[in-house]
Protein backbone atom coordinates (compact mmCIF):
# COMPACT_ATOMS: atom_id res chain seq x y z
CA UNK A 1 0.00 0.00 0.00
CA UNK A 2 1.69 3.26 -1.07
CA UNK A 3 1.94 5.88 1.68
CA UNK A 4 -0.93 8.34 1.68
CA UNK A 5 -2.10 11.05 4.03
CA UNK A 6 -5.20 8.97 4.71
CA UNK A 7 -2.97 6.78 6.87
CA UNK A 8 -2.62 9.66 9.29
CA UNK A 9 -5.05 10.49 12.01
CA UNK A 10 -4.38 13.65 13.96
CA UNK A 11 -6.22 15.05 16.89
CA UNK A 12 -5.40 18.74 17.25
CA UNK A 13 -6.91 19.00 20.70
CA UNK A 14 -4.90 16.17 22.14
CA UNK A 15 -2.08 17.30 24.40
CA UNK A 16 0.49 15.75 22.08
CA UNK A 17 1.75 18.35 19.59
CA UNK A 18 0.58 17.56 16.04
CA UNK A 19 4.14 17.21 14.72
CA UNK A 20 4.80 14.51 17.29
CA UNK A 21 1.57 12.70 16.45
CA UNK A 22 2.73 12.62 12.82
CA UNK A 23 6.22 11.46 13.75
CA UNK A 24 4.91 8.65 15.96
CA UNK A 25 2.59 7.51 13.19
CA UNK A 26 5.28 7.50 10.50
CA UNK A 27 7.55 5.53 12.84
CA UNK A 28 4.79 3.00 13.48
CA UNK A 29 3.91 2.70 9.78
CA UNK A 30 7.56 2.11 8.92
CA UNK A 31 8.19 -0.28 11.80
CA UNK A 32 5.13 -2.36 10.95
CA UNK A 33 6.20 -2.54 7.31
CA UNK A 34 3.02 -0.92 6.03
CA UNK A 35 5.30 1.67 4.51
CA UNK A 36 8.17 -0.11 2.83
CA UNK A 37 11.75 1.00 2.32
CA UNK A 38 12.01 3.39 -0.59
CA UNK A 39 8.32 4.39 -0.53
CA UNK A 40 7.70 8.08 -1.09
CA UNK A 41 5.85 9.95 1.65
CA UNK A 42 2.87 12.13 0.72
CA UNK A 43 4.00 15.73 0.16
CA UNK A 44 3.95 18.29 2.95
CA UNK A 45 1.36 20.31 1.10
CA UNK A 46 -0.88 17.30 0.52
CA UNK A 47 -0.78 16.21 4.15
CA UNK A 48 -1.41 19.75 5.40
CA UNK A 49 -4.36 20.10 3.06
CA UNK A 50 -5.91 16.70 3.80
CA UNK A 51 -5.51 16.95 7.55
CA UNK A 52 -6.24 20.68 7.68
CA UNK A 53 -3.16 21.54 9.63
CA UNK A 54 -0.41 24.11 9.21
CA UNK A 55 2.20 23.16 6.58
CA UNK A 56 5.01 24.14 8.91
CA UNK A 57 3.82 21.48 11.34
CA UNK A 58 4.07 18.73 8.71
CA UNK A 59 7.38 20.02 7.49
CA UNK A 60 8.71 20.05 11.05
CA UNK A 61 7.66 16.42 11.56
CA UNK A 62 9.34 15.37 8.29
CA UNK A 63 12.56 17.22 9.09
CA UNK A 64 12.80 15.62 12.52
CA UNK A 65 12.14 12.18 11.02
CA UNK A 66 14.93 12.88 8.56
CA UNK A 67 17.25 13.85 11.41
CA UNK A 68 16.36 10.59 13.16
CA UNK A 69 17.12 8.62 10.00
CA UNK A 70 13.60 7.29 9.52
CA UNK A 71 13.17 9.01 6.16
CA UNK A 72 15.53 10.69 3.73
CA UNK A 73 15.13 13.67 1.47
CA UNK A 74 15.36 12.92 -2.23
CA UNK A 75 15.91 15.90 -4.45
CA UNK A 76 12.88 16.72 -6.56
CA UNK A 77 10.89 13.82 -5.18
CA UNK A 78 10.35 14.62 -1.54
CA UNK A 79 10.81 12.30 1.39
CA UNK A 80 11.15 8.56 1.21
CA UNK A 81 11.36 5.79 3.75
CA UNK A 82 15.01 5.25 4.50
CA UNK A 83 16.76 2.26 2.99
CA UNK A 84 19.00 1.89 5.98
CA UNK A 85 17.14 0.21 8.77
CA UNK A 86 16.47 2.93 11.33
CA UNK A 87 17.65 1.08 14.39
CA UNK A 88 19.52 3.96 15.95
CA UNK A 89 22.57 3.86 18.19
CA UNK A 90 22.64 1.96 21.47
CA UNK A 91 22.30 5.26 23.28
CA UNK A 92 19.17 6.19 21.31
CA UNK A 93 17.63 2.81 21.93
CA UNK A 94 18.46 3.06 25.60
CA UNK A 95 16.72 6.40 25.80
CA UNK A 96 13.54 4.73 24.48
CA UNK A 97 13.63 2.48 27.53
CA UNK A 98 14.22 5.27 29.98
CA UNK A 99 10.61 6.08 30.94
CA UNK A 100 10.04 2.42 31.84
CA UNK A 101 13.30 2.19 33.72
CA UNK A 102 12.40 5.28 35.69
CA UNK A 103 9.34 3.51 36.99
CA UNK A 104 11.40 0.41 37.79
CA UNK A 105 13.94 2.53 39.68
CA UNK A 106 11.21 4.24 41.70
CA UNK A 107 9.47 1.01 42.62
CA UNK A 108 12.77 -0.70 43.41
CA UNK A 109 13.60 2.15 45.76
CA UNK A 110 10.23 1.86 47.47
CA UNK A 111 10.71 -1.89 47.81
CA UNK A 112 14.25 -1.36 49.14
CA UNK A 113 15.88 -3.43 46.36
CA UNK A 114 19.50 -2.76 45.41
CA UNK A 115 20.53 -2.20 41.75
CA UNK A 116 22.24 -5.64 41.80
CA UNK A 117 19.03 -7.30 42.92
CA UNK A 118 17.05 -5.51 40.19
CA UNK A 119 19.59 -6.53 37.53
CA UNK A 120 19.47 -10.14 38.74
CA UNK A 121 15.70 -10.11 38.37
CA UNK A 122 16.02 -8.61 34.88
CA UNK A 123 18.61 -11.19 33.86
CA UNK A 124 16.44 -14.11 34.93
CA UNK A 125 13.57 -12.57 32.95
CA UNK A 126 15.77 -12.42 29.81
CA UNK A 127 16.79 -16.07 30.35
CA UNK A 128 13.17 -17.15 30.77
CA UNK A 129 12.36 -15.62 27.37
CA UNK A 130 15.41 -17.08 25.73
CA UNK A 131 17.07 -13.80 24.64
CA UNK A 132 20.31 -13.28 26.43
Amino acid at each position, binding site marked *: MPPSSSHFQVNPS*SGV*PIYRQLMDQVRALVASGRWAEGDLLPSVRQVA*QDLQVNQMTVS*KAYSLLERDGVVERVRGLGMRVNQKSPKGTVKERQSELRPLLEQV*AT*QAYQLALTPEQVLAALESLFKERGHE
Partner: protein
Amino acid sequence: MSEPMLELRGVTKSFGHKSVLEDVELSLPAGSVLGLVGKNGSGKTTLLKCALGLQRPQQGDIRILGESAWELSAAGKERLGYVPQKIDLQPWMKIRQICAYTGAFYPRWNKPLVERRLRDWELNPEDRVGLLSVGQTQKLAFILALGHEPDLLVLDEPAASLDPVARRQFLETVLDMVGERTVLFSTHITSDLERVADRVAVLKDGKIVHSSELDELKDRVKRLHVQAATPLPNGAFRVPGMLQAKVTGNEAVVSVQDFTEDLPERIAQQWSASVSVQDLNLEDIFLELHHE
Protein backbone atom coordinates in the same frame (compact mmCIF):
# COMPACT_ATOMS: atom_id res chain seq x y z
CA MET B 1 16.24 35.80 9.38
CA SER B 2 14.41 38.68 7.78
CA GLU B 3 12.91 41.55 9.70
CA PRO B 4 9.78 40.66 11.71
CA MET B 5 6.47 41.69 10.11
CA LEU B 6 5.42 43.14 13.42
CA GLU B 7 7.33 44.00 16.54
CA LEU B 8 6.13 45.48 19.81
CA ARG B 9 8.61 46.60 22.44
CA GLY B 10 7.71 47.79 25.90
CA VAL B 11 4.20 48.79 24.84
CA THR B 12 2.13 50.28 27.63
CA LYS B 13 -1.36 51.61 27.13
CA SER B 14 -3.96 52.83 29.56
CA PHE B 15 -7.31 54.54 29.29
CA GLY B 16 -7.45 57.06 32.11
CA HIS B 17 -6.64 55.16 35.29
CA LYS B 18 -7.34 51.82 33.67
CA SER B 19 -4.16 50.12 32.56
CA VAL B 20 -4.78 47.81 29.58
CA LEU B 21 -1.36 46.84 28.25
CA GLU B 22 1.76 46.63 30.39
CA ASP B 23 5.20 46.44 28.86
CA VAL B 24 4.09 44.17 26.03
CA GLU B 25 6.80 42.52 23.93
CA LEU B 26 5.78 40.61 20.83
CA SER B 27 7.46 39.69 17.59
CA LEU B 28 5.86 38.15 14.53
CA PRO B 29 8.19 36.52 11.99
CA ALA B 30 7.24 36.62 8.31
CA GLY B 31 5.17 33.63 7.17
CA SER B 32 3.97 32.68 10.62
CA VAL B 33 0.44 32.37 11.95
CA LEU B 34 0.23 33.73 15.48
CA GLY B 35 -2.77 33.12 17.69
CA LEU B 36 -3.24 35.68 20.43
CA VAL B 37 -5.26 34.21 23.26
CA GLY B 38 -6.56 35.73 26.44
CA LYS B 39 -9.68 36.06 28.53
CA ASN B 40 -12.34 38.66 27.80
CA GLY B 41 -10.94 42.05 28.76
CA SER B 42 -7.32 40.91 28.77
CA GLY B 43 -6.35 43.56 26.19
CA LYS B 44 -6.35 41.59 22.92
CA THR B 45 -8.30 44.14 20.88
CA THR B 46 -6.29 47.06 22.27
CA LEU B 47 -3.04 45.25 21.44
CA LEU B 48 -4.18 44.69 17.84
CA LYS B 49 -5.35 48.28 17.47
CA CYS B 50 -2.05 49.62 18.77
CA ALA B 51 -0.17 47.26 16.45
CA LEU B 52 -2.09 48.69 13.48
CA GLY B 53 -1.54 52.29 14.51
CA LEU B 54 -5.24 52.83 15.26
CA GLN B 55 -4.49 53.59 18.88
CA ARG B 56 -1.40 55.19 20.31
CA PRO B 57 0.27 53.65 23.34
CA GLN B 58 1.67 55.90 26.09
CA GLN B 59 4.99 54.09 25.97
CA GLY B 60 6.84 51.69 23.74
CA ASP B 61 7.78 51.18 20.16
CA ILE B 62 5.74 49.41 17.48
CA ARG B 63 7.13 48.53 14.06
CA ILE B 64 4.83 47.07 11.46
CA LEU B 65 6.04 46.02 7.98
CA GLY B 66 9.28 47.80 8.78
CA GLU B 67 7.64 51.14 9.59
CA SER B 68 6.47 52.91 12.71
CA ALA B 69 2.86 51.79 13.31
CA TRP B 70 1.66 55.29 14.16
CA GLU B 71 3.15 56.77 10.97
CA LEU B 72 2.41 53.91 8.61
CA SER B 73 2.62 55.01 4.97
CA ALA B 74 -0.08 54.43 2.35
CA ALA B 75 2.19 51.84 0.74
CA GLY B 76 2.39 50.04 4.07
CA LYS B 77 -1.38 50.13 4.51
CA GLU B 78 -1.80 48.52 1.10
CA ARG B 79 0.05 45.48 2.40
CA LEU B 80 -2.20 45.20 5.42
CA GLY B 81 -5.57 43.51 5.89
CA TYR B 82 -7.67 43.94 9.01
CA VAL B 83 -10.97 42.59 10.25
CA PRO B 84 -12.04 44.30 13.47
CA GLN B 85 -14.22 42.66 16.06
CA LYS B 86 -16.89 45.30 15.63
CA ILE B 87 -17.42 45.36 11.90
CA ASP B 88 -18.64 48.65 10.53
CA LEU B 89 -19.62 48.49 6.86
CA GLN B 90 -21.91 50.83 4.96
CA PRO B 91 -25.33 49.20 5.57
CA TRP B 92 -27.04 50.81 2.57
CA MET B 93 -24.63 49.33 0.04
CA LYS B 94 -25.14 46.06 -1.78
CA ILE B 95 -22.37 43.47 -1.40
CA ARG B 96 -21.41 44.06 -5.05
CA GLN B 97 -21.14 47.81 -4.40
CA ILE B 98 -19.09 47.52 -1.23
CA CYS B 99 -16.65 45.21 -3.03
CA ALA B 100 -16.23 47.75 -5.85
CA TYR B 101 -15.97 50.60 -3.33
CA THR B 102 -13.31 48.87 -1.21
CA GLY B 103 -11.43 47.68 -4.29
CA ALA B 104 -11.13 51.24 -5.55
CA PHE B 105 -8.73 52.01 -2.70
CA TYR B 106 -6.27 49.30 -3.69
CA PRO B 107 -4.15 49.16 -6.85
CA ARG B 108 -3.72 45.39 -6.57
CA TRP B 109 -7.33 44.41 -5.91
CA ASN B 110 -8.04 40.82 -7.01
CA LYS B 111 -11.61 41.04 -8.30
CA PRO B 112 -11.89 37.43 -9.58
CA LEU B 113 -10.67 36.12 -6.21
CA VAL B 114 -13.22 38.23 -4.34
CA GLU B 115 -16.02 37.04 -6.63
CA ARG B 116 -14.97 33.42 -6.24
CA ARG B 117 -14.90 33.70 -2.45
CA LEU B 118 -18.35 35.32 -2.40
CA ARG B 119 -19.64 32.28 -4.28
CA ASP B 120 -17.77 29.79 -2.07
CA TRP B 121 -19.07 31.49 1.05
CA GLU B 122 -22.60 31.75 -0.32
CA LEU B 123 -22.92 35.51 -0.25
CA ASN B 124 -25.22 37.04 -2.87
CA PRO B 125 -23.67 40.17 -4.46
CA GLU B 126 -27.15 41.72 -4.74
CA ASP B 127 -27.89 41.48 -0.99
CA ARG B 128 -27.78 44.60 1.10
CA VAL B 129 -25.01 44.78 3.73
CA GLY B 130 -27.36 46.09 6.41
CA LEU B 131 -29.59 43.02 6.16
CA LEU B 132 -26.82 40.42 6.62
CA SER B 133 -26.56 38.31 9.75
CA VAL B 134 -23.63 38.72 12.11
CA GLY B 135 -21.92 35.64 10.69
CA GLN B 136 -22.50 36.75 7.08
CA THR B 137 -21.11 40.19 7.90
CA GLN B 138 -18.03 38.57 9.39
CA LYS B 139 -17.53 36.50 6.23
CA LEU B 140 -17.91 39.59 4.04
CA ALA B 141 -15.44 41.59 6.12
CA PHE B 142 -12.95 38.72 5.85
CA ILE B 143 -13.33 38.56 2.06
CA LEU B 144 -12.89 42.35 1.79
CA ALA B 145 -9.77 42.24 3.99
CA LEU B 146 -8.25 39.64 1.66
CA GLY B 147 -9.23 41.29 -1.63
CA HIS B 148 -5.91 43.09 -2.06
CA GLU B 149 -3.94 39.97 -1.03
CA PRO B 150 -2.25 41.59 1.96
CA ASP B 151 1.13 40.43 3.24
CA LEU B 152 -0.02 40.80 6.82
CA LEU B 153 -3.52 39.93 7.93
CA VAL B 154 -4.81 40.96 11.34
CA LEU B 155 -8.04 39.40 12.55
CA ASP B 156 -9.82 40.19 15.80
CA GLU B 157 -11.89 37.18 16.88
CA PRO B 158 -12.43 36.14 13.24
CA ALA B 159 -14.40 32.97 13.83
CA ALA B 160 -16.50 33.99 16.81
CA SER B 161 -19.81 34.24 14.94
CA LEU B 162 -19.22 31.67 12.21
CA ASP B 163 -21.13 28.41 11.95
CA PRO B 164 -19.06 25.18 11.81
CA VAL B 165 -19.08 25.06 7.98
CA ALA B 166 -17.98 28.66 7.63
CA ARG B 167 -15.38 28.19 10.35
CA ARG B 168 -13.92 25.29 8.43
CA GLN B 169 -13.83 27.43 5.27
CA PHE B 170 -12.17 30.19 7.23
CA LEU B 171 -9.51 27.78 8.55
CA GLU B 172 -8.91 26.41 5.04
CA THR B 173 -8.46 29.92 3.70
CA VAL B 174 -5.96 30.79 6.41
CA LEU B 175 -4.11 27.49 5.93
CA ASP B 176 -3.79 28.19 2.20
CA MET B 177 -1.96 31.40 3.03
CA VAL B 178 0.63 29.74 5.28
CA GLY B 179 4.16 30.56 4.28
CA GLU B 180 3.18 33.27 1.82
CA ARG B 181 1.42 35.61 4.20
CA THR B 182 1.65 36.43 7.85
CA VAL B 183 -1.42 36.18 10.03
CA LEU B 184 -2.14 37.51 13.49
CA PHE B 185 -5.44 36.61 15.02
CA SER B 186 -6.99 36.89 18.43
CA THR B 187 -9.31 34.22 19.66
CA HIS B 188 -10.64 32.44 22.66
CA ILE B 189 -11.56 29.37 20.59
CA THR B 190 -8.49 27.30 21.31
CA SER B 191 -9.44 24.42 18.99
CA ASP B 192 -9.23 26.69 15.90
CA LEU B 193 -5.85 27.86 16.98
CA GLU B 194 -4.45 24.36 17.39
CA ARG B 195 -4.91 23.59 13.71
CA VAL B 196 -3.72 26.77 12.07
CA ALA B 197 -1.38 28.60 14.39
CA ASP B 198 2.31 27.81 14.57
CA ARG B 199 2.89 30.40 17.27
CA VAL B 200 0.85 31.40 20.24
CA ALA B 201 0.97 34.35 22.63
CA VAL B 202 -0.99 34.38 25.85
CA LEU B 203 -2.16 37.76 27.11
CA LYS B 204 -3.11 37.93 30.75
CA ASP B 205 -4.08 41.16 32.52
CA GLY B 206 -2.35 43.22 29.82
CA LYS B 207 0.90 41.27 29.93
CA ILE B 208 2.24 38.63 27.57
CA VAL B 209 2.76 35.72 29.94
CA HIS B 210 3.82 33.34 27.22
CA SER B 211 4.94 33.64 23.61
CA SER B 212 6.48 30.79 21.64
CA GLU B 213 5.83 28.14 19.06
CA LEU B 214 2.63 26.30 19.85
CA ASP B 215 4.52 23.00 20.01
CA GLU B 216 6.98 24.46 22.47
CA LEU B 217 4.15 25.60 24.71
CA LYS B 218 2.75 22.07 24.66
CA ASP B 219 6.17 20.65 25.43
CA ARG B 220 6.69 23.00 28.36
CA VAL B 221 3.36 23.04 30.16
CA LYS B 222 2.55 19.63 31.62
CA ARG B 223 0.56 18.10 34.40
CA LEU B 224 2.38 15.67 36.66
CA HIS B 225 0.80 12.97 38.76
CA VAL B 226 2.93 12.26 41.79
CA GLN B 227 2.38 9.13 43.84
CA ALA B 228 4.44 8.77 47.01
CA ALA B 229 4.73 5.95 49.54
CA THR B 230 3.97 8.31 52.43
CA PRO B 231 1.70 11.37 52.72
CA LEU B 232 2.97 14.47 50.90
CA PRO B 233 3.08 17.75 52.85
CA ASN B 234 0.15 19.92 51.81
CA GLY B 235 1.36 23.47 51.34
CA ALA B 236 5.06 22.63 51.53
CA PHE B 237 4.91 20.49 48.38
CA ARG B 238 6.72 22.49 45.72
CA VAL B 239 8.28 21.71 42.39
CA PRO B 240 10.26 24.02 40.06
CA GLY B 241 8.12 26.09 37.67
CA MET B 242 4.94 25.14 39.46
CA LEU B 243 1.67 26.72 38.34
CA GLN B 244 -0.57 24.98 40.82
CA ALA B 245 -0.58 21.87 42.96
CA LYS B 246 -3.30 19.81 44.53
CA VAL B 247 -2.17 17.48 47.27
CA THR B 248 -4.39 14.69 48.60
CA GLY B 249 -2.70 12.25 50.98
CA ASN B 250 0.03 10.33 49.15
CA GLU B 251 -0.89 11.87 45.82
CA ALA B 252 -0.31 15.20 44.20
CA VAL B 253 -1.41 16.63 40.87
CA VAL B 254 0.82 19.48 39.88
CA SER B 255 1.04 21.59 36.74
CA VAL B 256 4.36 23.09 35.69
CA GLN B 257 5.32 25.64 33.05
CA ASP B 258 8.98 24.79 32.54
CA PHE B 259 8.88 21.07 31.98
CA THR B 260 12.16 19.38 31.13
CA GLU B 261 12.80 15.70 30.48
CA ASP B 262 14.67 15.29 33.76
CA LEU B 263 12.02 16.96 35.93
CA PRO B 264 9.98 13.80 36.72
CA GLU B 265 13.10 12.04 37.93
CA ARG B 266 14.14 14.97 40.10
CA ILE B 267 10.71 15.10 41.68
CA ALA B 268 10.72 11.32 42.09
CA GLN B 269 13.99 11.46 43.98
CA GLN B 270 13.12 14.44 46.11
CA TRP B 271 9.79 13.03 47.29
CA SER B 272 10.51 9.29 46.92
CA ALA B 273 7.59 9.05 44.59
CA SER B 274 6.66 7.78 41.16
CA VAL B 275 5.79 10.47 38.67
CA SER B 276 3.76 10.22 35.49
CA VAL B 277 3.46 12.98 32.92
CA GLN B 278 0.22 14.10 31.29
CA ASP B 279 0.21 16.07 28.03
CA LEU B 280 -2.19 18.99 27.97
CA ASN B 281 -4.13 20.49 25.10
CA LEU B 282 -4.30 24.21 24.55
CA GLU B 283 -7.53 24.64 26.45
CA ASP B 284 -6.08 22.87 29.51
CA ILE B 285 -2.92 24.94 29.21
CA PHE B 286 -4.95 28.12 28.94
CA LEU B 287 -6.83 27.21 32.13
CA GLU B 288 -3.63 26.28 33.97
CA LEU B 289 -1.99 29.58 33.00
CA HIS B 290 -5.03 31.47 34.26
CA HIS B 291 -5.35 29.69 37.56
CA GLU B 292 -5.64 32.20 40.37
